[in-house]
């Protein structure tokens, strides 16, 4: 056991214990402390996860090989036709390119793509090194676009220039560049864009089906199972429906300016949120028939889902969960979903949550719940033990940590194998939680509880000035 503090002085303001009576705010939206084991990723990572599901585009990573290797088909998003996006293209910069510039190599790489394929769109992603050596991605993209009469779109995603959120923005800019003008003719049906679903395990298909059941047409899903052609026509919808707020609110705002399309936040995680979101969209359509169909559909679905869910409630009641996910919005919907299952959230953290999201988290959770921004494995370990959580929800790097501690784990990120959204997803989710938390394997582990820890506790009730 280390005698060192678990929480570094500089990190204390990023950790909070929920004290309802006091107005407290958490530090967030800041750079990580150098030397900390951060779980955060980079700008490129943000751009890649958002754009990668565009199925028929070529995603060309301009940089040394690693950036392309690590992101090769790790997204888990499905396609209904073209699977080009699952390949990994890179310029694999070499030393001479770093010295003399990588522009020539990039041009040659695009030529070589065009020799064997005929893509309509090539996204060219900038990585750190490209930002530093100063390759003019814009100029080359323009030149190549003209030469081949296709769209070569630069994605300004040099890793160091911010964090994952800035990568989302870079992706949104690339998407906006792809979107064509709005068609002028009026439509006699209600049509929406669905932003921020990446079709992990086919989730976008489920929502598409729900909407079609109630009579709402989906113009394009951004970016799950989207083709370039579909995205080009995004300007034609009546409404933008935003699921993943972190990545897509910016795009929705820009589309409002560009095409005058309003947007609404929705969530399809959990029975309650799914039902609410469908009803909300129906209302926004202003179409009586859609509203009625939505009400009926929701009633039926909620009923069936609840019958299914009931099977698990008994087995899950009273368990405690720790949540550590990328964005604040996902954390919020998870808290609610667990509450529906009778599971209390004892730790809630995000990599890139915003201040208002943390306020909401504070509102939703109970007194004493630990709230964390940009945490690291030692802190996580400490709070998992301290709170005696039964389950951790997190990403790839957290899984083995939880397992070593004898804590069940749920991946709510790229590695989910079953859809977790919609009514069916809510049931899948309960099933998955049950499957892991009630596995006999935990009985072989001697849980050591928090007894090894005798740290000072002052951060635990850490309070800051109100806004």
């Amino acid at each position: 056991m280390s005698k060192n503090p678990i929480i570094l002085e500089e990190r204390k303001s990023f950790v909070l214990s929920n004290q309802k009576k006091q107005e407290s705010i958490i530090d967030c939206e800041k750079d990580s402390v150098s030397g900390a084991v951060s779980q955060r990723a980079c700008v490129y990572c943000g751009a890649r996860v958002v754009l990668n599901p565009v199925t028929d585009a070529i995603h060309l990573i301009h940089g040394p090989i690693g950036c392309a290797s690590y992101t090769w088909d790790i997204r888990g998003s499905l396609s209904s036709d073209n699977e080009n996006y699952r390949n990994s293209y890179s310029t694999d910069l070499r030393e001479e390119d770093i010295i003399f510039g990588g522009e020539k190599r990039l041009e040659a790489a695009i030529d070589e793509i065009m020799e064997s394929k005929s893509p309509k769109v090539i996204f060219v992603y900038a990585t750190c090194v490209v930002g530093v050596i100063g390759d003019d991605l814009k100029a080359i993209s323009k030149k190549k676009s003209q030469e081949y009469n296709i769209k070569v779109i630069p994605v300004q995603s040099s890793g160091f220039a911010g964090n994952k959120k800035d990568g989302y923005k870079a992706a949104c800019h690339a998407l906006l560049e792809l979107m064509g003008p709005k068609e002028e003719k009026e439509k006699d049906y209600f049509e929406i864009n669905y932003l921020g679903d990446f079709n992990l395990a086919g989730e976008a298909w489920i929502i598409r089906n729900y909407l079609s059941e109630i009579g709402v047409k989906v113009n394009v899903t951004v970016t799950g199972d989207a083709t370039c052609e579909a995205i080009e026509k995004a300007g034609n919808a009546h409404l933008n429906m935003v699921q993943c707020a972190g990545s897509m609110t910016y795009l929705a705002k820009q589309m409002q300016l560009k095409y005058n399309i309003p947007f609404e936040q929705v969530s399809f995680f959990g029975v309650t949120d799914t039902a609410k979101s469908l009803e909300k969209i129906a209302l926004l359509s202003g179409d009586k028939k859609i509203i009625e169909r939505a009400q009926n559909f929701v009633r039926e679905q909620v009923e069936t889902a609840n019958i299914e869910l009931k099977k698990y409630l008994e087995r899950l009641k009273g368990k405690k969960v720790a949540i550590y996910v990328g964005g604040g919005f996902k954390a919020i919907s998870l808290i609610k979903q667990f509450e529906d299952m009778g599971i209390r959230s004892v730790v809630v953290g995000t990599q890139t949550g915003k201040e208002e999201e943390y306020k909401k988290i504070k509102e939703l959770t109970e007194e004493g719940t630990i709230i964390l921004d940009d945490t690291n494995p030692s802190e996580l370990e400490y709070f998992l033990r301290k709170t005696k959580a039964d389950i951790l929800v997190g990403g790839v790097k957290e899984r083995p940590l939880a397992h070593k501690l004898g804590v069940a784990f749920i991946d709510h990120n790229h590695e989910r194998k079953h859809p977790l959204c919609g009514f069916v997803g809510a049931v899948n989710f309960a099933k998955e939680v049950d499957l892991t938390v009630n596995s006999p394997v935990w009985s072989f582990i001697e849980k050591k509880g928090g007894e090894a820890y005798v740290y000072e506790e002052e951060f635990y009730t850490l309070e800051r000035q109100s806004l």
Partner: protein
Amino acid sequence: MLNYTTKEIKERSALVVNPAKTCQPIGAMYAALGINKCLPHSHGSQGCCSYHRMHLTRHFRDPIVASTSSFTEGACVFGGKSNLSKGLETVFELYNPDIVAVNTTCLSETIGDDLTEIIKSTNLPEDKVVIYANTPSYVGSHVTGFSNMTKAMVSHLAKKERDVPSNTINIIPGYVEPSDMGEIRRMLKLLDIPSIMFPDTSGVVNAPNKGKYEMYPEGGVTIEELKATGDSKATVALGSFSSKEAAYELEKRFDIPPHILKLPIGIKATDEFLMSLLSLTGDVFIPEELEIERGQLLDVMIDVHHHYHGKKVALFGDPDIMIALTEFVIDLGMIPKYVITGTPGKEFERTIKGMFEKADLKECVVKAEADLMTLHQLIKNESVDLLIGNTYGKYIARAEDIPLVRVGFPILDRVGHSYFPTVGYKGALRLIEKISTAILDKYDETCPEEDFELVM
């Protein structure tokens, strides 16, 4: 997903499609984990470190921790000095490792941070050690990074403290699994040879579950041992690409004779490994336990040679593993139709070509600095019976309906690699089991009813 791959092969000079390698820092990070109580530190932006940890975590299914200098735009303009100094202070305060192993990334290399100078000017706790390696990812591959960090262990720590060398032999196991490192240690123990093996990730990235999280599991070579490598009487470096640099460094500094061998994968390479060790100690007998293992391996090879003899196999992965595996499959009577590595190196092509010539294999192809698109196209032109390589091979395996035996790095979709060795006689036995099973399973699934047999 690879259904679109075309048969026609066009030479590419600038574009890599589906890489068969990755970047230096991850190799350096893996090597660093093989030092007891070591925290790897990545000097660059967060993204790289996060990806390297993620990839290693997926492969080993164990928590892989490393800190990062967390570069922002400021660091790119003014240099990463303050990030690293501050970062190292934080690391020791917060995580209390005995040693930190710093690797660079393309970013810190490109802006030209001078690690030697920065670390010298940083206020470090007295009893702590920092070593570092330059690992620009636009040079070499992850294998190069492993080699560079292994070499750094020598250049920063090894010392000569005795006038007469000790009896100890330095063993550099190469970029292999923790299970392989454990197996190499077991063989040394059976031979009763005092040794220092570095790096040694066994017990670190395949640590037992004790119901608690240990940031520094028990395994790994200690700093004291690394210091003592300067007093050893010889160095045995396994796998030239990943190990020879450190061996040469020991020779340069302390005149310790280097012996560069193949990875002991397969019967011949294991024989050579053991015989070389014996020649160093002057012993003549192989311990009975190893004799028995060899005999059992041979027995199985004879019993089932008809399962794989004459079968064509495509191999891809890291150069050291490929070199040893190619030799082994040739010894099994298989035809290594294509041998591909993503890591650059003419030496690789020369070595494999030599093997082809010696075995009179005329139409086999070897390529260094190649990618899996190339391998797939080759297979489209003339198919093989078996693929041997890492998890990424599953795309080709599915598209072409060829069984895949998973060997190498990374393996993201199967377990066992961190626990069962590939090296030594035991490893060879396991490889045969896998190869033979893969071929027979495929046969059982696809053969006509009248050829479906109980006994094979």
